[in-house]
């Protein structure tokens, strides 16, 4: 049995320590969480009646990769692309690494480009997303073809059709999602000068 003064002191101490334990997730953890959620959301939205097929041509992971990639944080953009792409690969189960490779490359190249040219504006981001969408479809289809995982019925015309529809879908989705991303994710992925990663200038 604790003495009375000890009991009185222990209660407020415990409360204050509980208040000092906020759930502070790092930027990478938050983006990883966002990646998981958007992968789930995409798999559910595609089942919506009448409009679900539209979401087959919207790649939320690519949009997030471009969103991060247009800032000069090369490693982070590559890692976001890597994580999201591998999540998609695991869900699809057809060729592990195909989507991961494509999105890692897109994220890294965008971030490296954005060190020399400013890509982080409303118009530029959309143009970059359109370009990234075409590269994403083309490279992914190439890997499926290269490793004989592409359906034998798929023709070059099908790939172009899917690429065009994906360009349209991703661009329209980017138009809506980039402002939302600015509002909800902007402060998490902003470049922080106090970071000391393995490559301060590039991270």
């Amino acid at each position, binding site marked *: 049995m604790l003495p009375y003064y000890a009991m009185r002191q222990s209660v407020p101490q415990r409360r204050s320590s509980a208040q000092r334990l906020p759930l502070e997730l790092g930027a990478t953890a938050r983006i990883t969480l966002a990646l*998981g*959620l958007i*992968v*789930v*959301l*995409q*798999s*559910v*939205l*595609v*089942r*919506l*009646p009448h409009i*679900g*097929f539209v*979401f*087959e*041509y919207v*790649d939320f992971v690519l949009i997030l990769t471009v969103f991060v990639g247009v800032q000069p944080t*090369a*490693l982070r953009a*590559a890692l976001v692309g*890597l994580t999201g792409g*591998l*999540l*998609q690969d*695991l*869900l*699809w*189960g*057809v*060729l*592990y*690494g*195909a989507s*991961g*490779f494509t999105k*890692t*490359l897109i994220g*890294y190249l965008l971030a*490296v480009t954005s060190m020399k040219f400013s890509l982080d504006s409303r118009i530029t981001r959309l143009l970059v997303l359109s370009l990234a969408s075409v590269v994403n479809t083309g490279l*992914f289809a190439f*890997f*499926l073809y290269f*490793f*004989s*995982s*592409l*359906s*034998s*019925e*798929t023709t070059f015309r099908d790939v172009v059709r*899917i690429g065009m529809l*994906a360009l349209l879908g991703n661009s329209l989705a980017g138009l809506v999602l980039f402002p939302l991303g600015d509002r909800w994710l902007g402060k998490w992925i902003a470049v922080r000068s106090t970071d000391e990663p*393995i*490559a*301060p*200038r*590039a*991270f």
Partner: protein
Amino acid sequence: MSGLPPPLQKLDPSRRVALLVGSLLLAQFLLMSLHARARSLGQSLPRTTLITLLQPIQTATDAVVTALVTVWRGYVDLRRVYVDNHRLREENDRLRLALVEREQEALDGRRLRDMLALKQSSPAPTVIANVIGGDGTPWFRQVTLDKGSLDGVQLNAPVVTPQGLVGRVVAVGPTASIVQTIADGQAGLGATLAVSRVNGELRGQNQPLCRLDNVPGLTEVNNGELVLTSGLDGVYPKGLIIGTVETVDRAAGAGVHRIFVRPAAPLERLEEVAVLPPMLRVTITESPRSLPPKSPAK
């Protein structure tokens, strides 16, 4: 940066990142190569873990989205009522809502009754599962179920609805599983035309229609003819309804018909499905090639 090996410390930071990203890309290329070589479509430990982790979130999200769609549909229905007499509006709303609920209940009841009948007519143990997700890409046609190995779902198990065949299970987690539908570009199965009894190979095209190959041009095929599973592929039992012949590009003489089949199951709007037990599979191992023949006894 003191934790890095000396050769890396000498590198420019941006080159260090380039080196790391290059290594990641190379690793993923090797992963693709290994996966393509292994041909283990579907089942793997990371995939099983992922679908198990995502299953509760998928189920919850699906429930929320379904509820929102139901509310939206109710709203759309109600909007039509507002043009009616103002005095009768409240009563009309109540009656319409009640009617919608009853119709929904009746539809649910009919669907569940069909599923129950299917379950009773199927060999045990049949598992009834809900579809909780699609694959969200135009490249494949797969769906996620909310039942897994803990419920008795097994790899390669055929999946059906009362209307017809859906596909087969290609990955199983403890609480979720993934089904490759017959419309998937990589799906293929043995099929039989119900009238002529000629066998062919049905292939998915990532489109609403599937293609039936290898049916000789001399065979008489009519639009609307029923297509059944042949059972020759070792995955699907014989006699399940696949769909009906939609169009036939007839071949002359020794050629083969180009037949398109519309699946009977509503693959684009699946809700509940039945997972049948997988067929008995025969594992073929390599025969010992280098065994010398026994010398005859002298």
